[in-house]
């Protein structure tokens, strides 16, 4: 291509709107008086206008899907995902505000738990009073913890069987403490329960300290525990 002369450069700069106002005026005056220059300029303007209007391709769907497939991570098995999740090092971020909020939530939960499950211990002293239900607080809750006590120094094992455990002597065992005292604390809903102690797995006896008793239909006496709501 032949080198551009000064006039060619002015035309090009005009196309790029790169002329000073004075240069523009001079150029337009030259165009007005020079048909050849005018023709060259118009041809260039046409090229620029046509180029800006050339149809644009739309990338094919195949192109897009293939490309996205190539940048997608390889599929990972469930086992690998689980292993990665379990073994991935994690950074625990916390703020003082969120830590305090979590502590408050924990305290409220603990208080609620204590409130919901008060410990109700039924003390059954051997020497005197029968089993009693003692409310741990003024609020009545559905579960009452009843402590059963039996003095049996010679026994090797003591358990209790009754309505509350399907009369299964193997389910609720009493623990031996000093002096041959056997105790167990049983959570019970309010209601009336018949029960008996089982000594050494074979001797069934009624609670000698029970306030109430009833016949068991087999010639023996069952103790009756009345767990009342207050």
């Amino acid at each position, binding site marked *: *291509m032949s080198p*551009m002369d000064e006039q*060619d*450069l002015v035309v*090009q700069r005009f*196309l*790029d709107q790169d002329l000073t106002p004075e240069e523009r005026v001079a150029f337009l005056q030259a165009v007005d008086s020079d048909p050849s220059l005018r*023709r*060259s300029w*118009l*041809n*260039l303007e*046409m*090229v*620029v206008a*046509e*180029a*800006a*209007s*050339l*149809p*644009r*391709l*739309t*990338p*094919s769907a195949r*192109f*897009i899907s*293939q*490309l*996205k497939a*190539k*940048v*997608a*991570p390889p599929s990972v098995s469930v086992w690998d995902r689980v292993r990665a999740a379990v073994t991935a090092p994690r950074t625990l971020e916390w703020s003082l505000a969120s830590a305090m909020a979590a502590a408050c939530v924990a305290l409220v939960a603990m208080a609620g738990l204590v409130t919901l499950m008060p410990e109700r211990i039924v003390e059954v002293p051997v020497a005197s009073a029968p089993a009693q239900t003692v409310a741990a607080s003024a609020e009545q809750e559905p579960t009452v913890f009843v402590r059963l006590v039996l003095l049996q120094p010679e026994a090797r094992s003591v358990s209790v069987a009754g309505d509350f455990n399907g009369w299964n002597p193997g389910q609720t065992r009493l623990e031996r403490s000093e002096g041959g005292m056997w105790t167990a604390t049983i959570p019970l809903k309010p209601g009336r329960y018949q029960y008996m102690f089982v000594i050494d797995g074979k001797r069934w006896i009624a609670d000698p300290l029970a306030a109430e008793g009833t016949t068991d239909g087999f010639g023996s006496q069952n103790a009756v525990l009345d767990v009342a709501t207050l």
Partner: protein
Amino acid sequence: MGSRMPLVQQEGPDDGQLVARSVKQDAHAFGQLIDRHAAAIVNLAYRMVGNRAEAEDLAQEAFLAAFKALSTFRADSKFSTWLYRIAANKCKDWLRVKRPGQGFHDVDADEALDAHVAEERTPEGLLSQQQVAQELEQAIQRLPPLYREAFVLKHVEGLSYEEMAEILGVNGDTLKMRVYKGRLQLSRELADLNPTR
């Protein structure tokens, strides 16, 4: 027709945010970058190599190269500029291999072009609008690669000289000369087709 590409800010996350997410292996984020810039890159490649299938292959290579090199992308520059640069280089590499010696104007091709359009003129001997567009597309393919690249970025993709300088790593004055020469060659070719112009 002829909607210009450049560099329009999209709604939703900007390119920088999508790049940051892509670096963290968010394939969906890079997919959004693909959706935003695929047309521009495919069209640049098409105008450079003149073949749709080759253009999509080159565009795909450009995107994959960008994806692999995401960690090197500087957040203070535009993703589109960086992507254009990768694509332009891919196209020039392709031309160097596939069409060596295209740096010089092919006179024989001009003569063949004259013969091709001889029968297609209007009664007045002028080319129709559509024919002008077709002839221009083919004439662009006959531009030397560096002129072609500059002309396409300037007048087909609608970029500024500043953006082009950033993409190509060439100073503005050099780019202007390439565009000037490209325009001149194209206007002379089209004028030859319409001698009455």
